[in-house]
């Protein structure tokens, strides 16, 4: 009975699992999840190379992203995660004395970077399913725009990520809940350092699982085996040797059986060469079960 209960929760998470954009669960053959979201961060401080906060010109990044999962079989899931429209801007710098513009602000609008992936779930019905993913990060954004070459809608390099996902579903009172985690290696090109990535999340479904609340921990640790920051003109969230540990919250609400809305918030609690400001996201999703 207990086993059946866990299995039923796991199956429920297969349907709902895409709420937290992945996890180890396979989407299921012919099933699709599409999420269109706006993600943004605006920051005037950053974590420097020793993790302390230093100022910078106010910089903003707005990504209108499409995330999609397509169940190719009961074990294979194809994923797409791309910034269909990315906007990076920097404020004008004005004299506090004369009000003259000293450095003209600029913006760069373009397609952002796109990740495409394939996930294989080994044991969908196990108590703790495990999946292996291969994600290719395509440098479709612009790595050096604007008159100074310091505006970016992508990192300009080809990422190859191998990731192991795991998770499990359970009950909290009468509510469905789950935890999921991942570890991964990002092999990078163009002199960028390789990265170790990991994350954990915990979600609980409320109101008959129409509302899912999720807490997330996401981290990137750089191997720092690439070029130094002085070798490239990277800023903002695309700089080389970046590291962070971020905590976030996300809420997803099913307006209908297939359409829902989401809102999220995350902020780095530790970082190096990375923006030091919260990021926000709002989105709509289509869950074809």
């Amino acid at each position, binding site marked *: 009975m207990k086993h059946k209960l866990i299995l039923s929760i796991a199956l429920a998470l297969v349907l709902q699992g895409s709420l937290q954009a992945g996890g180890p669960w396979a989407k299921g053959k012919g099933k699709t999840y599409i999420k*269109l*979201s*706006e993600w*943004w961060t*605006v920051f*005037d401080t*950053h974590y*420097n*190379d*020793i993790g*302390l*906060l*230093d*100022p*910078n*010109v*106010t910089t*903003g*990044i*707005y990504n*209108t992203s499409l995330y999609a999962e397509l169940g190719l079989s009961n074990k294979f899931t194809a994923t797409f995660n791309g910034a269909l429209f990315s*906007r990076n*801007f*920097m*404020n*004008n*710098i*004005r*004299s*506090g*004395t*004369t009000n003259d513009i*000293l*450095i003209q*602000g*600029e*913006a760069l609008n373009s397609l952002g970077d796109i990740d495409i992936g394939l996930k294989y779930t080994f044991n969908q019905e196990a108590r703790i399913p495990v999946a292996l993913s291969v994600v290719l990060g395509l440098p479709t954004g612009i790595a050096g725009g604007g008159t*100074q*070459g*310091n505006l970016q809608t992508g990192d300009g390099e080809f990422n190859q990520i191998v990731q192991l996902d795991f998770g499990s579903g359970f009950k909290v009172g009468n509510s469905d809940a789950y935890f999921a985690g991942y570890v991964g290696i990002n092999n990078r090109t163009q002199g960028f350092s390789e990265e170790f990535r990991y994350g954990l999340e915990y979600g609980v479904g409320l109101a008959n699982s129409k509302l899912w609340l999720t807490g997330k921990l996401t981290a990137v640790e750089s191997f720092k085996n690439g070029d*130094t*920051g*002085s*070798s*490239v*003109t*990277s*800023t903002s969230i695309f*700089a080389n*040797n970046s590291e962070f540990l971020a905590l976030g919250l996300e809420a997803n609400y099913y*307006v*209908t059986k297939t*359409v829902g*809305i989401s809102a999220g918030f995350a902020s780095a609690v530790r970082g190096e*060469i990375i923006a030091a400001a919260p990021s926000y996201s*709002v*989105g*709509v*999703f*289509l869950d074809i079960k």
Partner: protein
Amino acid sequence: MKNFIFFSTLLFILFTGCIEDDFIEDFVEPEISITNAIDTLGLDTEYQFNTRFLNNTGQQESVEVVWESSDPTVISITQSGLATAHSAGTVVIAVNTVDQSISDAIEVTVGEETVEVEEPASITGSIMTTTFYDLEGTFTLSETDTGLFLDIADDYVTTSALPGFYVYLSNNRNSISGAFEIGEVTVFRGAHSYEIDGVSLNDYNFIVYYCKPFNVKVGEAVLN
């Protein structure tokens, strides 16, 4: 599907980042200075004084000035700064802005021949970080017959983590507007030099280290 399209359209409309303004505190006290001071003016000779005016953001500007001699019977001076020595004695030559708010003055003695004030041929000082990025060291800025040289000493160390890291000469410690770009920082530890063309030793008051992509000052040195 209609709901999905509706909410999707709403996202595009509502969320767009706009370029706004960041302000920097770039006020400096305006200053006027006599750039070619002399100790002694030869009897019955003339000497043309020059000035430099830096406004309240450290930018060099041409302004109308008023020249004064404390005793025109010893040394007279025209409003274009041309001084003439008439008799023995010592006077104060002063230059003022028209509103008399900013001035500079030197003491000049009438003697056998004109003698310029001997300026030091070099300036030494310390580079200090103004952020949490590593940046420190001592330097010598020296003027020779072949040009101006900024020699950074062996005790210098800075970070290699910053992209677009440049060094400037500026008259405003908080701004590179109107500053002279010496070059990109490519040495992160130890002694090195920059050769600087078209600049004189006393043209600027500060060395400024600046990260261009982040548009932020990283460190500075005062040129006394």
